[in-house]
Protein backbone atom coordinates (compact mmCIF):
# COMPACT_ATOMS: atom_id res chain seq x y z
CA UNK A 1 0.00 0.00 0.00
CA UNK A 2 1.12 3.51 -0.73
CA UNK A 3 0.90 6.24 1.89
CA UNK A 4 -1.47 8.21 -0.32
CA UNK A 5 -4.20 5.65 0.38
CA UNK A 6 -4.33 6.64 4.06
CA UNK A 7 -2.76 10.10 4.28
CA UNK A 8 -2.45 13.51 2.68
CA UNK A 9 0.31 16.07 2.72
CA UNK A 10 1.32 19.68 2.12
CA UNK A 11 4.84 21.00 1.75
CA UNK A 12 6.27 24.35 2.75
CA UNK A 13 9.75 25.86 2.97
CA UNK A 14 11.99 28.27 4.86
CA UNK A 15 15.44 28.96 3.53
CA UNK A 16 17.00 25.59 2.86
CA UNK A 17 14.53 23.62 4.97
CA UNK A 18 11.55 21.68 3.67
CA UNK A 19 8.53 21.11 5.91
CA UNK A 20 6.37 18.15 4.83
CA UNK A 21 3.20 17.23 6.68
CA UNK A 22 1.69 13.77 6.66
CA UNK A 23 -1.91 13.68 7.85
CA UNK A 24 -4.00 10.55 8.32
CA UNK A 25 -7.40 10.79 6.61
CA UNK A 26 -8.72 8.56 9.38
CA UNK A 27 -7.37 9.10 12.89
CA UNK A 28 -7.10 5.33 13.44
CA UNK A 29 -4.39 5.13 10.76
CA UNK A 30 -2.18 7.58 12.64
CA UNK A 31 -0.46 4.78 14.55
CA UNK A 32 0.48 3.14 11.25
CA UNK A 33 2.06 6.40 10.08
CA UNK A 34 3.95 6.72 13.35
CA UNK A 35 5.24 3.18 13.13
CA UNK A 36 6.06 3.01 9.42
CA UNK A 37 7.21 6.49 8.48
CA UNK A 38 10.31 7.04 10.55
CA UNK A 39 12.93 9.74 10.14
CA UNK A 40 15.39 7.16 8.89
CA UNK A 41 12.98 5.98 6.23
CA UNK A 42 12.22 9.50 5.05
CA UNK A 43 15.90 10.44 4.99
CA UNK A 44 16.70 7.36 2.91
CA UNK A 45 13.73 7.93 0.61
CA UNK A 46 14.85 11.49 -0.19
CA UNK A 47 18.59 10.65 -0.12
CA UNK A 48 19.27 12.32 -3.48
CA UNK A 49 17.51 15.49 -2.35
CA UNK A 50 17.88 15.85 1.41
CA UNK A 51 21.49 16.48 2.45
CA UNK A 52 20.76 17.22 6.10
CA UNK A 53 18.98 15.94 9.15
CA UNK A 54 15.33 14.85 9.20
CA UNK A 55 13.30 15.66 12.31
CA UNK A 56 9.79 14.34 12.91
CA UNK A 57 7.18 16.08 15.04
CA UNK A 58 4.07 14.25 16.20
CA UNK A 59 0.67 15.92 16.38
CA UNK A 60 -1.39 13.41 18.33
CA UNK A 61 -4.58 15.45 18.38
CA UNK A 62 -4.61 15.91 14.61
CA UNK A 63 -3.33 12.45 13.74
CA UNK A 64 -0.50 14.02 11.79
CA UNK A 65 3.27 13.99 11.50
CA UNK A 66 5.43 16.91 10.45
CA UNK A 67 8.78 16.19 8.82
CA UNK A 68 11.39 18.92 8.79
CA UNK A 69 14.16 18.19 6.29
CA UNK A 70 17.30 20.32 6.58
CA UNK A 71 19.57 21.10 3.58
CA UNK A 72 16.97 19.97 1.09
CA UNK A 73 16.40 22.95 -1.18
CA UNK A 74 19.63 23.11 -3.18
CA UNK A 75 21.32 25.85 -1.16
CA UNK A 76 18.13 27.79 -0.40
CA UNK A 77 15.05 28.81 -2.34
CA UNK A 78 16.64 31.91 -3.82
CA UNK A 79 19.80 30.33 -5.25
CA UNK A 80 18.72 26.75 -5.86
CA UNK A 81 19.09 25.51 -9.42
CA UNK A 82 16.09 23.21 -9.03
CA UNK A 83 12.99 23.74 -11.13
CA UNK A 84 10.87 23.50 -7.99
CA UNK A 85 13.03 25.77 -5.86
CA UNK A 86 10.61 25.66 -2.93
CA UNK A 87 10.35 21.87 -3.01
CA UNK A 88 6.57 22.25 -3.05
CA UNK A 89 6.14 18.94 -4.87
CA UNK A 90 8.04 16.84 -2.31
CA UNK A 91 4.97 15.92 -0.26
CA UNK A 92 3.44 14.18 -3.27
CA UNK A 93 6.58 12.05 -3.56
CA UNK A 94 6.32 11.09 0.11
CA UNK A 95 2.74 9.92 -0.48
CA UNK A 96 4.10 7.49 -3.08
CA UNK A 97 6.13 5.69 -0.41
CA UNK A 98 5.20 2.03 -0.05
CA UNK A 99 4.38 0.90 3.47
Amino acid sequence: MKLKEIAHSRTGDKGEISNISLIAYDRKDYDILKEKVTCEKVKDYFREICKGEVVRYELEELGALNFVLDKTLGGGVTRSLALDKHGKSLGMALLEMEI
Partner: protein
Amino acid sequence: MKTIRIGSGAGYAGDRIEPAVELMEKGNLDYIIFECLAERTIALGQKEKQRDGTKGYNPLLEYRMQHILPLVKEKRIKVVTNMGAANVKAAADKTMEIAKSLGIDGIKIAYVTGDDLGKNLEAFSDHDVLETGCKLKDMGVNIISANAYMGAEGIMEALRNHADVIITGRVSDPALVIGPLAYEFGWDMEKDLDRMGQAVLAGHLLECAGQVTGGYYADPGYKEVPDLERLGYPLAEIDESGTFIITKVEGSGGLVTTDTCKEQMIYEIHNPEEYYTPDAIADFSKVTFTQVGKDRVEAEHAVSKGKPGQLKVSIGYEDCYIGEGEISYGGSNCLERAKLAEEVVRKRLEITSAVLEEYRCDYIGYNSLYRDAISERLCDGNRSEIRLRISGRTKDEWNATLIANEVEALYTNGPAGGGGVVKRVEQVVSVCSIFISREDVTASVDYLEIP
Protein backbone atom coordinates in the same frame (compact mmCIF):
# COMPACT_ATOMS: atom_id res chain seq x y z
CA MET B 1 -20.25 37.45 23.60
CA LYS B 2 -18.37 39.92 21.40
CA THR B 3 -17.22 38.39 18.13
CA ILE B 4 -14.83 39.87 15.57
CA ARG B 5 -14.90 38.79 11.94
CA ILE B 6 -11.60 39.00 10.08
CA GLY B 7 -11.29 38.05 6.42
CA SER B 8 -8.18 37.31 4.40
CA GLY B 9 -8.06 39.04 1.02
CA ALA B 10 -4.64 37.97 -0.25
CA GLY B 11 -2.19 35.19 0.52
CA TYR B 12 0.65 36.41 -1.65
CA ALA B 13 1.75 39.51 -3.56
CA GLY B 14 -0.10 38.74 -6.78
CA ASP B 15 -3.25 37.11 -5.42
CA ARG B 16 -6.74 37.43 -6.97
CA ILE B 17 -8.95 40.41 -6.11
CA GLU B 18 -12.49 39.02 -6.64
CA PRO B 19 -12.47 36.78 -3.54
CA ALA B 20 -11.42 39.79 -1.42
CA VAL B 21 -14.25 41.90 -2.83
CA GLU B 22 -16.67 39.00 -2.28
CA LEU B 23 -15.56 38.76 1.37
CA MET B 24 -16.01 42.49 1.90
CA GLU B 25 -19.43 42.54 0.24
CA LYS B 26 -20.92 39.41 1.78
CA GLY B 27 -18.75 38.42 4.74
CA ASN B 28 -20.11 40.92 7.29
CA LEU B 29 -16.48 41.66 8.13
CA ASP B 30 -14.97 43.92 10.74
CA TYR B 31 -11.47 43.58 9.26
CA ILE B 32 -9.77 42.32 6.14
CA ILE B 33 -6.07 41.55 5.87
CA PHE B 34 -3.91 41.40 2.74
CA GLU B 35 -0.69 39.45 3.25
CA CYS B 36 1.63 40.25 0.36
CA LEU B 37 5.24 39.78 1.46
CA ALA B 38 7.38 36.75 0.70
CA GLU B 39 10.92 36.43 2.05
CA ARG B 40 12.55 38.27 -0.84
CA THR B 41 9.81 40.76 -1.68
CA ILE B 42 11.24 43.68 0.28
CA ALA B 43 14.74 43.26 -1.16
CA LEU B 44 13.30 43.35 -4.68
CA GLY B 45 11.12 46.32 -3.68
CA GLN B 46 14.16 48.14 -2.33
CA LYS B 47 15.90 47.78 -5.71
CA GLU B 48 12.82 49.18 -7.39
CA LYS B 49 12.75 52.08 -4.92
CA GLN B 50 16.38 52.87 -5.77
CA ARG B 51 15.36 53.22 -9.42
CA ASP B 52 12.20 55.22 -8.65
CA GLY B 53 11.72 56.77 -5.21
CA THR B 54 7.92 56.65 -5.54
CA LYS B 55 7.88 52.86 -5.97
CA GLY B 56 8.92 49.83 -3.93
CA TYR B 57 5.51 48.93 -2.55
CA ASN B 58 3.26 46.08 -3.76
CA PRO B 59 2.74 46.42 -7.54
CA LEU B 60 -0.96 45.58 -7.15
CA LEU B 61 -1.59 48.15 -4.41
CA GLU B 62 -3.32 50.61 -6.76
CA TYR B 63 -5.45 47.90 -8.35
CA ARG B 64 -6.48 46.53 -4.97
CA MET B 65 -7.19 49.91 -3.38
CA GLN B 66 -9.36 50.95 -6.35
CA HIS B 67 -11.53 47.92 -5.61
CA ILE B 68 -11.57 47.91 -1.83
CA LEU B 69 -11.57 51.56 -0.70
CA PRO B 70 -15.23 52.11 -1.66
CA LEU B 71 -16.11 49.06 0.45
CA VAL B 72 -14.00 50.28 3.36
CA LYS B 73 -16.20 53.35 3.40
CA GLU B 74 -19.53 51.68 2.66
CA LYS B 75 -19.19 48.68 5.00
CA ARG B 76 -16.90 50.28 7.61
CA ILE B 77 -14.36 47.48 7.26
CA LYS B 78 -10.83 48.12 8.42
CA VAL B 79 -7.92 47.03 6.21
CA VAL B 80 -4.61 45.75 7.57
CA THR B 81 -1.93 44.98 5.00
CA ASN B 82 1.84 44.69 4.56
CA MET B 83 1.60 45.97 0.98
CA GLY B 84 3.92 48.84 1.96
CA ALA B 85 6.88 46.49 1.41
CA ALA B 86 10.03 48.62 0.90
CA ASN B 87 8.25 51.98 0.63
CA VAL B 88 5.48 52.21 3.18
CA LYS B 89 5.07 55.98 3.00
CA ALA B 90 4.76 55.95 -0.80
CA ALA B 91 2.13 53.20 -0.50
CA ALA B 92 0.16 55.36 1.97
CA ASP B 93 0.51 58.44 -0.28
CA LYS B 94 -0.74 56.44 -3.26
CA THR B 95 -3.66 55.06 -1.24
CA MET B 96 -4.56 58.60 -0.18
CA GLU B 97 -4.42 59.75 -3.80
CA ILE B 98 -6.76 56.93 -4.85
CA ALA B 99 -9.20 57.68 -2.01
CA LYS B 100 -9.34 61.32 -3.16
CA SER B 101 -9.84 60.34 -6.79
CA LEU B 102 -12.73 58.09 -5.75
CA GLY B 103 -14.31 60.95 -3.79
CA ILE B 104 -14.03 59.10 -0.50
CA ASP B 105 -14.01 61.23 2.63
CA GLY B 106 -13.90 60.45 6.33
CA ILE B 107 -11.05 58.01 5.96
CA LYS B 108 -7.84 57.72 7.96
CA ILE B 109 -4.80 55.93 6.61
CA ALA B 110 -2.01 54.84 8.94
CA TYR B 111 1.42 53.71 7.90
CA VAL B 112 3.69 51.77 10.18
CA THR B 113 7.47 52.03 9.83
CA GLY B 114 10.45 51.04 11.92
CA ASP B 115 11.16 47.67 10.33
CA ASP B 116 13.73 49.10 7.90
CA LEU B 117 17.16 48.79 9.54
CA GLY B 118 19.10 49.42 6.33
CA LYS B 119 20.66 52.65 7.59
CA ASN B 120 21.61 51.24 10.99
CA LEU B 121 22.94 47.88 9.94
CA GLU B 122 26.49 48.72 11.06
CA ALA B 123 25.31 48.36 14.65
CA PHE B 124 24.66 44.68 14.01
CA SER B 125 27.80 43.83 12.03
CA ASP B 126 29.04 41.44 14.75
CA HIS B 127 25.82 39.42 14.74
CA ASP B 128 25.96 35.85 13.43
CA VAL B 129 24.22 35.08 10.17
CA LEU B 130 21.85 32.14 10.63
CA GLU B 131 22.38 30.58 7.20
CA THR B 132 26.16 30.82 6.94
CA GLY B 133 27.36 30.89 10.55
CA CYS B 134 29.72 33.80 9.81
CA LYS B 135 29.41 37.32 11.16
CA LEU B 136 27.37 39.78 9.16
CA LYS B 137 30.41 41.97 8.48
CA ASP B 138 32.21 38.97 6.98
CA MET B 139 29.48 38.15 4.45
CA GLY B 140 31.34 40.15 1.79
CA VAL B 141 28.23 40.90 -0.24
CA ASN B 142 26.36 43.95 -1.44
CA ILE B 143 23.46 44.30 1.00
CA ILE B 144 20.25 45.69 -0.48
CA SER B 145 17.83 45.66 2.43
CA ALA B 146 17.50 44.79 6.10
CA ASN B 147 14.09 44.55 7.71
CA ALA B 148 13.07 43.33 11.15
CA TYR B 149 9.97 41.21 11.49
CA MET B 150 7.91 43.46 13.72
CA GLY B 151 4.96 42.37 15.80
CA ALA B 152 1.50 43.84 16.15
CA GLU B 153 2.36 46.92 18.30
CA GLY B 154 2.28 49.43 15.44
CA ILE B 155 -0.98 48.04 14.08
CA MET B 156 -2.56 48.24 17.55
CA GLU B 157 -1.42 51.85 17.96
CA ALA B 158 -2.96 52.71 14.59
CA LEU B 159 -6.24 51.09 15.63
CA ARG B 160 -6.27 53.00 18.92
CA ASN B 161 -6.03 56.15 16.82
CA HIS B 162 -9.01 55.08 14.69
CA ALA B 163 -7.21 54.29 11.44
CA ASP B 164 -9.35 52.68 8.71
CA VAL B 165 -6.51 51.47 6.51
CA ILE B 166 -3.22 50.34 8.04
CA ILE B 167 -0.24 49.81 5.77
CA THR B 168 2.96 48.23 7.04
CA GLY B 169 6.27 47.03 5.74
CA ARG B 170 7.77 43.90 7.26
CA VAL B 171 5.65 42.57 10.09
CA SER B 172 5.11 38.90 10.84
CA ASP B 173 2.25 37.52 8.78
CA PRO B 174 0.11 36.58 11.82
CA ALA B 175 0.60 40.10 13.24
CA LEU B 176 -1.91 41.37 10.67
CA VAL B 177 -4.54 39.35 12.59
CA ILE B 178 -3.04 39.54 16.09
CA GLY B 179 -3.15 43.36 16.00
CA PRO B 180 -6.92 43.66 15.50
CA LEU B 181 -7.67 40.88 18.02
CA ALA B 182 -5.41 42.15 20.80
CA TYR B 183 -6.78 45.67 20.24
CA GLU B 184 -10.47 44.68 20.12
CA PHE B 185 -10.40 42.33 23.09
CA GLY B 186 -7.71 44.11 25.09
CA TRP B 187 -5.54 41.01 25.30
CA ASP B 188 -2.24 41.27 27.12
CA MET B 189 0.49 39.55 25.13
CA GLU B 190 2.35 38.51 28.28
CA LYS B 191 -0.63 37.41 30.38
CA ASP B 192 -3.37 36.18 28.06
CA LEU B 193 -1.31 33.27 26.81
CA ASP B 194 -4.22 31.04 25.77
CA ARG B 195 -5.82 33.83 23.78
CA MET B 196 -2.54 34.91 22.21
CA GLY B 197 -1.90 31.34 21.09
CA GLN B 198 -5.29 31.33 19.43
CA ALA B 199 -4.56 34.72 17.83
CA VAL B 200 -1.37 33.37 16.27
CA LEU B 201 -3.25 30.29 15.06
CA ALA B 202 -5.98 32.43 13.51
CA GLY B 203 -3.34 34.56 11.80
CA HIS B 204 -1.44 31.53 10.58
CA LEU B 205 -4.56 29.89 9.15
CA LEU B 206 -5.66 33.11 7.41
CA GLU B 207 -2.34 34.39 6.10
CA CYS B 208 -2.26 32.23 2.96
CA ALA B 209 -5.88 33.07 2.11
CA GLY B 210 -7.22 30.34 -0.22
CA GLN B 211 -4.86 27.71 1.16
CA VAL B 212 -7.26 27.01 4.04
CA THR B 213 -10.45 27.03 1.94
CA GLY B 214 -9.51 24.32 -0.53
CA GLY B 215 -6.76 26.03 -2.50
CA TYR B 216 -3.55 24.00 -2.87
CA TYR B 217 -5.53 20.97 -1.68
CA ALA B 218 -7.36 19.25 -4.55
CA ASP B 219 -6.19 15.83 -5.71
CA PRO B 220 -8.75 14.21 -8.05
CA GLY B 221 -9.92 10.85 -6.76
CA TYR B 222 -8.58 11.61 -3.29
CA LYS B 223 -9.47 15.14 -2.28
CA GLU B 224 -12.21 16.78 -4.34
CA VAL B 225 -12.76 20.54 -4.16
CA PRO B 226 -15.81 22.19 -5.74
CA ASP B 227 -15.51 25.27 -7.98
CA LEU B 228 -11.80 26.06 -7.55
CA GLU B 229 -12.11 28.82 -10.17
CA ARG B 230 -14.40 30.66 -7.74
CA LEU B 231 -12.40 29.77 -4.63
CA GLY B 232 -13.72 31.70 -1.65
CA TYR B 233 -11.18 33.21 0.73
CA PRO B 234 -11.42 32.53 4.47
CA LEU B 235 -12.79 34.52 7.33
CA ALA B 236 -12.44 33.81 11.03
CA GLU B 237 -15.14 34.55 13.59
CA ILE B 238 -13.25 35.01 16.83
CA ASP B 239 -14.82 35.48 20.25
CA GLU B 240 -13.24 37.00 23.32
CA SER B 241 -12.28 33.60 24.73
CA GLY B 242 -10.05 33.17 21.67
CA THR B 243 -12.04 30.28 20.25
CA PHE B 244 -12.72 30.82 16.57
CA ILE B 245 -14.40 29.38 13.53
CA ILE B 246 -12.84 29.33 10.07
CA THR B 247 -15.43 29.67 7.35
CA LYS B 248 -16.05 31.36 4.00
CA VAL B 249 -18.83 33.21 2.22
CA GLU B 250 -21.81 31.04 1.34
CA GLY B 251 -21.96 30.22 -2.34
CA SER B 252 -18.25 30.68 -2.99
CA GLY B 253 -16.10 27.84 -4.32
CA GLY B 254 -13.80 25.68 -2.26
CA LEU B 255 -14.41 24.05 1.11
CA VAL B 256 -13.45 24.37 4.76
CA THR B 257 -12.92 21.06 6.52
CA THR B 258 -10.83 19.81 9.40
CA ASP B 259 -8.45 18.42 6.74
CA THR B 260 -7.97 21.75 4.93
CA CYS B 261 -7.30 23.34 8.33
CA LYS B 262 -4.83 20.64 9.36
CA GLU B 263 -2.83 21.03 6.14
CA GLN B 264 -2.61 24.78 6.60
CA MET B 265 -1.86 24.66 10.31
CA ILE B 266 1.18 22.43 9.82
CA TYR B 267 2.33 24.38 6.75
CA GLU B 268 5.80 25.84 7.33
CA ILE B 269 5.64 25.79 11.15
CA HIS B 270 8.53 23.36 11.72
CA ASN B 271 8.26 22.60 15.45
CA PRO B 272 4.55 22.75 16.39
CA GLU B 273 5.45 23.33 20.04
CA GLU B 274 7.47 26.43 19.24
CA TYR B 275 6.20 28.47 16.35
CA TYR B 276 8.07 31.75 16.64
CA THR B 277 6.38 35.03 15.88
CA PRO B 278 7.36 38.45 17.27
CA ASP B 279 4.21 38.56 19.43
CA ALA B 280 4.23 35.03 20.77
CA ILE B 281 6.01 31.71 20.73
CA ALA B 282 2.97 29.64 19.88
CA ASP B 283 2.39 26.02 20.83
CA PHE B 284 0.07 24.36 18.30
CA SER B 285 0.74 20.82 19.49
CA LYS B 286 -2.62 20.42 21.27
CA VAL B 287 -4.76 22.20 18.68
CA THR B 288 -8.06 20.55 17.81
CA PHE B 289 -10.32 21.18 14.83
CA THR B 290 -14.03 20.35 14.92
CA GLN B 291 -16.40 20.44 11.97
CA VAL B 292 -19.35 22.39 13.39
CA GLY B 293 -21.23 22.91 10.13
CA LYS B 294 -20.80 22.94 6.36
CA ASP B 295 -17.61 24.91 5.67
CA ARG B 296 -17.33 25.77 9.35
CA VAL B 297 -14.43 24.49 11.47
CA GLU B 298 -13.85 25.43 15.08
CA ALA B 299 -10.26 25.76 16.27
CA GLU B 300 -9.18 25.51 19.89
CA HIS B 301 -6.26 24.87 22.24
CA ALA B 302 -3.40 26.87 20.78
CA VAL B 303 -1.40 28.59 23.50
CA SER B 304 1.45 31.07 23.72
CA LYS B 305 4.65 30.54 25.67
CA GLY B 306 5.24 34.31 25.83
CA LYS B 307 7.02 36.81 23.61
CA PRO B 308 10.45 35.97 22.26
CA GLY B 309 13.28 38.22 23.39
CA GLN B 310 14.72 38.51 19.92
CA LEU B 311 13.40 39.50 16.52
CA LYS B 312 14.48 38.12 13.18
CA VAL B 313 15.95 40.51 10.65
CA SER B 314 15.76 39.52 7.02
CA ILE B 315 18.67 40.83 4.96
CA GLY B 316 18.52 40.95 1.19
CA TYR B 317 21.75 40.91 -0.82
CA GLU B 318 23.06 40.57 -4.36
CA ASP B 319 24.11 36.96 -4.48
CA CYS B 320 24.94 35.35 -7.82
CA TYR B 321 23.66 34.78 -11.35
CA ILE B 322 21.68 31.86 -12.70
CA GLY B 323 21.68 30.98 -16.39
CA GLU B 324 19.32 28.37 -17.73
CA GLY B 325 17.86 26.98 -20.90
CA GLU B 326 15.25 24.41 -21.87
CA ILE B 327 14.57 22.43 -25.03
CA SER B 328 12.08 19.64 -25.79
CA TYR B 329 12.58 16.33 -27.60
CA GLY B 330 9.81 13.99 -28.76
CA GLY B 331 9.41 10.45 -30.02
CA SER B 332 10.29 7.12 -28.49
CA ASN B 333 14.02 7.95 -28.52
CA CYS B 334 13.50 11.32 -26.87
CA LEU B 335 15.41 10.66 -23.65
CA GLU B 336 18.47 9.44 -25.56
CA ARG B 337 18.51 12.57 -27.72
CA ALA B 338 18.00 14.78 -24.64
CA LYS B 339 20.94 13.03 -22.94
CA LEU B 340 23.09 13.61 -26.04
CA ALA B 341 22.07 17.27 -26.02
CA GLU B 342 23.09 17.56 -22.38
CA GLU B 343 26.48 16.03 -23.15
CA VAL B 344 26.98 18.53 -25.96
CA VAL B 345 26.18 21.49 -23.72
CA ARG B 346 28.41 20.20 -20.90
CA LYS B 347 31.36 19.75 -23.27
CA ARG B 348 30.73 23.12 -24.92
CA LEU B 349 30.88 24.80 -21.52
CA GLU B 350 34.28 23.17 -20.99
CA ILE B 351 35.51 24.25 -24.43
CA THR B 352 34.39 27.83 -23.85
CA SER B 353 35.95 27.81 -20.35
CA ALA B 354 32.71 28.77 -18.65
CA VAL B 355 33.20 29.22 -14.90
CA LEU B 356 30.34 27.71 -12.92
CA GLU B 357 29.79 27.41 -9.17
CA GLU B 358 27.24 24.67 -9.72
CA TYR B 359 25.79 22.88 -12.73
CA ARG B 360 22.49 21.01 -12.93
CA CYS B 361 20.69 18.99 -15.57
CA ASP B 362 17.03 18.03 -15.37
CA TYR B 363 14.89 15.93 -17.67
CA ILE B 364 11.46 17.48 -17.23
CA GLY B 365 8.85 14.75 -17.45
CA TYR B 366 11.27 12.31 -15.86
CA ASN B 367 13.44 13.45 -12.96
CA SER B 368 13.27 17.23 -12.50
CA LEU B 369 11.27 17.10 -9.26
CA TYR B 370 12.47 13.96 -7.48
CA ARG B 371 15.82 13.08 -9.13
CA ASP B 372 16.49 9.48 -10.18
CA ALA B 373 15.67 6.94 -7.47
CA ILE B 374 12.10 8.06 -6.74
CA SER B 375 11.40 8.93 -10.40
CA GLU B 376 12.52 5.52 -11.64
CA ARG B 377 10.14 3.80 -9.24
CA LEU B 378 7.19 5.97 -10.29
CA CYS B 379 7.79 5.75 -14.05
CA ASP B 380 6.47 2.95 -16.25
CA GLY B 381 9.24 3.49 -18.81
CA ASN B 382 7.25 4.84 -21.75
CA ARG B 383 7.90 8.45 -22.64
CA SER B 384 6.68 10.35 -25.68
CA GLU B 385 8.48 13.58 -24.87
CA ILE B 386 11.19 14.98 -22.62
CA ARG B 387 12.20 18.54 -21.87
CA LEU B 388 15.87 19.07 -21.15
CA ARG B 389 16.67 21.82 -18.70
CA ILE B 390 20.22 22.92 -18.00
CA SER B 391 21.03 25.49 -15.36
CA GLY B 392 24.10 26.85 -13.66
CA ARG B 393 25.02 29.27 -10.95
CA THR B 394 27.79 31.74 -11.71
CA LYS B 395 29.50 34.74 -10.18
CA ASP B 396 28.84 36.97 -13.18
CA GLU B 397 26.34 37.57 -15.94
CA TRP B 398 28.66 36.54 -18.77
CA ASN B 399 29.13 32.97 -17.62
CA ALA B 400 25.40 32.61 -16.94
CA THR B 401 24.74 33.81 -20.48
CA LEU B 402 27.10 31.15 -21.86
CA ILE B 403 24.89 28.43 -20.37
CA ALA B 404 21.66 29.87 -21.73
CA ASN B 405 23.17 30.40 -25.17
CA GLU B 406 24.59 26.90 -25.44
CA VAL B 407 21.12 25.45 -24.86
CA GLU B 408 19.71 27.73 -27.55
CA ALA B 409 22.49 26.68 -29.94
CA LEU B 410 21.14 23.12 -29.76
CA TYR B 411 18.58 24.25 -32.34
CA THR B 412 21.08 24.15 -35.20
CA ASN B 413 23.99 22.31 -33.58
CA GLY B 414 22.42 19.65 -31.39
CA PRO B 415 20.54 16.38 -31.85
CA ALA B 416 17.60 16.09 -34.26
CA GLY B 417 14.17 17.46 -33.58
CA GLY B 418 14.72 19.75 -30.59
CA GLY B 419 12.10 22.46 -30.16
CA GLY B 420 10.61 25.08 -27.89
CA VAL B 421 13.76 26.66 -26.52
CA VAL B 422 13.43 29.03 -23.62
CA LYS B 423 16.45 30.70 -22.06
CA ARG B 424 16.87 32.98 -19.10
CA VAL B 425 19.65 34.79 -17.27
CA GLU B 426 19.01 36.54 -13.99
CA GLN B 427 20.77 38.10 -11.09
CA VAL B 428 19.80 36.38 -7.87
CA VAL B 429 18.82 38.36 -4.81
CA SER B 430 19.06 36.17 -1.73
CA VAL B 431 18.11 36.65 1.88
CA CYS B 432 19.90 35.77 5.08
CA SER B 433 18.91 36.37 8.68
CA ILE B 434 20.26 37.70 11.94
CA PHE B 435 18.52 37.93 15.30
CA ILE B 436 18.53 41.14 17.30
CA SER B 437 17.11 42.27 20.62
CA ARG B 438 13.50 43.39 20.31
CA GLU B 439 14.45 46.62 22.12
CA ASP B 440 16.40 47.60 19.01
CA VAL B 441 13.22 47.90 16.94
CA THR B 442 10.52 50.52 17.49
CA ALA B 443 7.38 50.84 15.43
CA SER B 444 6.41 54.36 14.34
CA VAL B 445 2.95 55.21 13.11
CA ASP B 446 2.04 58.18 10.91
CA TYR B 447 -1.34 59.19 9.54
CA LEU B 448 -2.94 60.68 6.45
CA GLU B 449 -6.54 61.72 6.68
CA ILE B 450 -9.42 62.98 4.55
CA PRO B 451 -11.84 64.51 7.06
